[in-house]
């Protein structure tokens, strides 16, 4: 049973990983055909992977409703929201436009999903400002450098900031955009490149560990 439950899945990971890795370096029709098949299959499997998140959400909220925990009524709206999107989609066969007119699905996207998704992420702007006021304290040279870079970016990106800079510091013949450009081309590249290197090395090591079966947490418990 261990063979079917553990070793065959690990063998699949090893074979698929190694063959995919090898096919990158082997410019041969066979490796191209192999990659094409794998790409098609991966496309289909990824489509099903989404179901994990869906069922997890549904089970969690269904249990809240069943056990009538505090706030269980709100969990009903998860299913309402789901049906508001899916039912019109089934009726219009996934089409958002019917000629030049919006279908129910198109309406749901334009007036519900757009508003909900956009607002959720934009709320962060308020917290950035209040946190900047309450917690951004320049207590060291390093924090000062961070603030200086942020100040130049924040001012340099908007017309009013550019005008103010030109009026106050125009005598230096150094435009704020030139400084922003230099920041982006030099120190930001250096800092970001170092981080990218570290991430790249870590990523390669983790990928190798997964292929060789050393890293197995994604398989769950035995």
């Amino acid at each position, binding site marked *: 049973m261990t063979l079917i439950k553990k070793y065959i899945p690990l063998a699949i990971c090893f074979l698929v990983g190694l063959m995919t890795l090898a096919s990158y370096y082997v410019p041969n029709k066979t490796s191209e055909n192999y990659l094409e098949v794998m790409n098609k299959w991966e496309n289909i499997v990824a489509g099903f992977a989404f179901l994990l998140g869906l069922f997890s959400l549904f089970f969690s909220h269904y249990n809240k409703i069943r056990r009538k925990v505090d706030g269980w009524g709100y969990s009903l709206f998860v299913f309402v929201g789901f049906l508001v999107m899916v039912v019109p989609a089934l009726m219009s066969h996934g089409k958002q436009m019917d000629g030049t007119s919006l279908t129910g699905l198109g309406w749901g996207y334009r007036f519900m999903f757009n508003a909900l998704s956009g607002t959720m992420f934009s709320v962060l702007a308020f917290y950035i400002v209040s946190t900047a006021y309450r917690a951004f304290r320049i207590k060291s040279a390093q924090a000062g450098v961070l603030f200086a870079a942020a*100040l130049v970016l924040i001012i340099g990106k908007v017309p009013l900031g550019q005008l103010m800079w030109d009026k106050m510091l125009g005598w230096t013949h150094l435009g704020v955009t030139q400084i922003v450009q230099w920041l982006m081309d030099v120190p930001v590249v250096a800092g970001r490149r170092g981080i990218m290197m570290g991430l790249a090395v870590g990523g390669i090591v983790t990928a190798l560990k997964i292929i060789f079966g050393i890293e197995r947490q994604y398989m769950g418990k035995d």
Partner: protein
Amino acid sequence: MKNFLEKLLKIDRRLIFLALAILLVFPIVKPLGLPNLNLGSEVKSLYERIEGLPPRSFVLMSLDYDPATRPELHPQAVAILRHAFRKNLRVGILTLNAGATGLIEEIGERIPKDIAPEKVYGKDYVILPYQPNPVAVMTQMGMDLYQIYDKDRDGSPIRDMEVFKGIKNVKDMQLGICITGTAMLDYWIAYTGDKFKFPMAGGVTAVSQMGYAPYLQTGQLKGLVGGMKGAADYETLINHKEKGTSGIDALSLAHLMVIILIVTANIMMLWLKYL
């Protein structure tokens, strides 16, 4: 004085929220009308790249953003599309983000209305359906795109469409542009740009813009439009001002507010510490 400053440092944050809301709404109601003076060189790079393409070159646009990042990225997509159509380029639009399909419908609606009414679907541009697993799609695009995309979003076969004449994979295309609020551009650079030597450019949110500076420096990215400022810069270059330009105009006061708040808070902190 000390008590007053301490109270001011602990001010109810809802008052800060209200101030920010007022400073953002005011320029929407009464635009400041400030000119967008200084244009980013990485935006100019993309503009010049598209300017230099011969007519009927094929540009692949991967629009991978959802409503959460729409205000920054949608103006970029519209401006670049407008430019591409003005240069009589063929455009293939696809998405690898499930949340973007609705926004692409909007673009599909706008092309015949105001972006490029003279352009014909199937001859000058095509919209491909959503596909999951971006890596599989990108890898396949480098070999034979028809194995992944055999139909467009309406279910019509694409192989014989005039817009795809002479196109089998990304090596037959002249430029790829990925507009995204996620790490999708990294994948495009890695799995098509570097692997198949496919010229790639990008449009990203302001938050992610700094992370692509190394790619610009190495030439892995041929141009980069960053955030709403990037959209405004591109609109200025194509001489067609829209949401990008009006957007950064509206942000001016809010940006100033952030600087004033940070500087004021630090001055008060120093005052309390030393006086």
